[in-house]
């Protein structure tokens, strides 16, 4: 049997190691752009810490009230109450601080994803070549196991929050790019023609017609980006990001069922609240 299998398996003589080239590329980047990565590290750190400071500055009861009011205003009284209870429960479990950490990382990642994703999405909507180039890249970014990003992230940015943000951005930007591009391409033909027929410049057509028309879909993309960023919370804790994910990792190491459940359910609650609130915001933009 063994011999037979050997006969039909791929010949060992022909070998190709693509990973080697990626490694070489990463090494080359490190060698030549260390200053750039250091600067980037500082910027990301600065954003995360400021958001974290801002969030910690809000007293816990006000925070809960805020969530309640948002839920009430955007959806319904019951929803507001539900969200408030969920966030309250996270506090009761004793994971308030960790939640703030996680939230800071997620918010930073999402903001940067939007800043990167929307312009790329707009360009690829106009440029078929760019779109054709991006499609497999985006597919790859989303299907590549998210752990894999941790390795270059660590090499570029060391351990801690910054590589976590980097890996999260790589993982969660694709839907933002994709849906922005799709939304702009789907602006009805006559509407775009009308914009140009009245003498709009490309910028005016984009800002006054195409983007407002695309907004509901772009917001749906942002919602997806946020959810993907949330799902990276645990993964990125493997390289030392603090927050709710860290507790999950510890719980796994200790096989601590209670702790695992507590931090797990906190992540779920946080995800639900963020998802519903961003969904409601994107609904506000619908006008068709």
């Amino acid at each position, binding site marked *: 049997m063994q011999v037979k299998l050997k006969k039909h398996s791929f010949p060992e003589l022909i070998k190709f190691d693509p990973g080697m080239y990626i490694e070489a590329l990463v090494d080359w980047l490190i060698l030549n752009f260390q200053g750039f990565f250091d600067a980037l590290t500082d910027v990301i750190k600065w954003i995360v810490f400021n958001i974290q400071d801002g969030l910690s500055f809000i007293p816990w009861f006000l925070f809960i009230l805020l969530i309640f009011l948002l839920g009430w205003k955007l959806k319904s009284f019951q929803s507001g109450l539900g969200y408030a209870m969920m966030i309250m429960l996270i506090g009761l479990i004793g994971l308030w601080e960790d939640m703030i950490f996680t939230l800071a990382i997620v918010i930073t990642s999402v903001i940067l994803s939007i800043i990167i994703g929307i312009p790329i999405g707009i360009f690829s909507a106009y440029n078929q070549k760019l779109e054709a180039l991006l499609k497999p890249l985006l597919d790859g970014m989303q299907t590549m196991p998210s752990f894999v990003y941790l390795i270059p992230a660590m090499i570029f940015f060391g351990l801690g929050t910054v590589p976590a943000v980097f890996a999260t951005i790589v993982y969660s930007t694709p839907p933002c790019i994709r849906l922005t591009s799709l939304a702009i391409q789907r602006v009805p033909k*006559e509407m775009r*023609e009308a*914009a140009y*027929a009245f*003498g709009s410049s490309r910028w005016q057509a984009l800002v006054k017609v195409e983007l407002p028309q695309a907004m509901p879909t772009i917001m749906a993309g942002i919602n997806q980006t946020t959810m993907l960023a949330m799902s990276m919370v645990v993964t990125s804790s493997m390289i030392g990001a603090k927050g709710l994910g860290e507790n999950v990792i510890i719980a796994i190491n200790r096989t601590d069922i209670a702790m695992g459940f507590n931090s797990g359910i906190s992540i779920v609650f946080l995800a639900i609240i963020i998802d519903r609130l961003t969904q409601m915001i994107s609904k506000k933009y619908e*006008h068709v």
Partner: protein
Amino acid sequence: MSKKIEVKNLYKIFGSKPKLALKRLKEGWTKEKILKTTGQTVGVNNASFTVDEGEFFVIMGLSGSGKSTLIRCLNLLNRPTAGEILIDGEDIVKYDRQQLREFRQNKVAMVFQNFGLFTHRTVLGNVEYGLEIRNINKDKRKQIALEALESVGLKGWEDKMPTELSGGMQQRVGLARALANNPDILLMDEPFSALDPLIRRDMQIELLEIQSKLKKTIIFITHDINEAFKLGDRVAVMKDGKIVQQGTPEEILNNPSNEYIEDFVKSIDRTKVIKAKNIMKRPNALVSIKDGVRVAIREMQTNHISSVFVVGENMQLEGIVTIDDCVEAIKNKQSSLKALLRHDYYKTTEDEYIENLLENATKSRYPIVVVNDENKLLGIIVRTSILSGLLPYNSN
């Protein structure tokens, strides 16, 4: 009248190798053969026409005939493959980006088949759009936009969203948006095709009213021959990207240049094209109000009719008298016609379509009388002339 638009040998070919297709086309290949062998789609094939200032020019053709492609060349939404488009003597095809924007902002506006309204803006925001692009200040553009909305009968609707409006009202917004820019030229791409027939008729009438006030140069696309002939001062018929005939509705109706147009013309409802003036006759018999009853009786007897119109000085219409009344009057030794005048006939103007006369023609005992604004008698229409007017290809 001065020439406003002059299109010379215009070609538009869609695809990656338009020059090749153009060469083949000039060698005499058909549209189908070019599509098969080169994969290029011929949209417009050697179109030439002139439109005068203030003229209502209709381009008619079935779907796929290239009419929408052609109208989009006139504001360069489609860039022509070859040919010239002179507007006020300038070739717009040669414009650079900035000149083109200025041209679109100032000279030409477009109305779309499916309205092309911005659904994220209010009705007012839509009408203001062209002015906003031109950086006209807020108060001024609001004022202009409100006036434009009022002119299309949408006063009070400015804060609604377009999707809250019916189709007819949405197209009024589209029209107001185009008018607000005060363009010389209005391009209308099947503007009423998406509307139901009743609304369409109202919109056609309103457009004609607006046109009689504003005297824009209008290029109007339609696939409906009734609409084309009703609205157009002149009509161009397109087929397979070519203009196969152009002329006034009467010219085309009476002298279709080929089978394709003949088929088109057959489908037309002639009652909507032919006007009272086309079928009215000069009355054989007429009496003056100063004449006596006996003169009237003699007029009727010699012409074998039972009633006759009575006119005063300068052909002013006074009324109608019947033979029975006259005979009765003779018996009673009355001689003046004044006492016998009847007024239960139907009066119309010379520009009325016979569509609107049919019912009265069948109801009334007397011929329909055609008068001008000063009540001067111009002619009469008897039932038989309406019927013969409806026959195709008569040369009235």
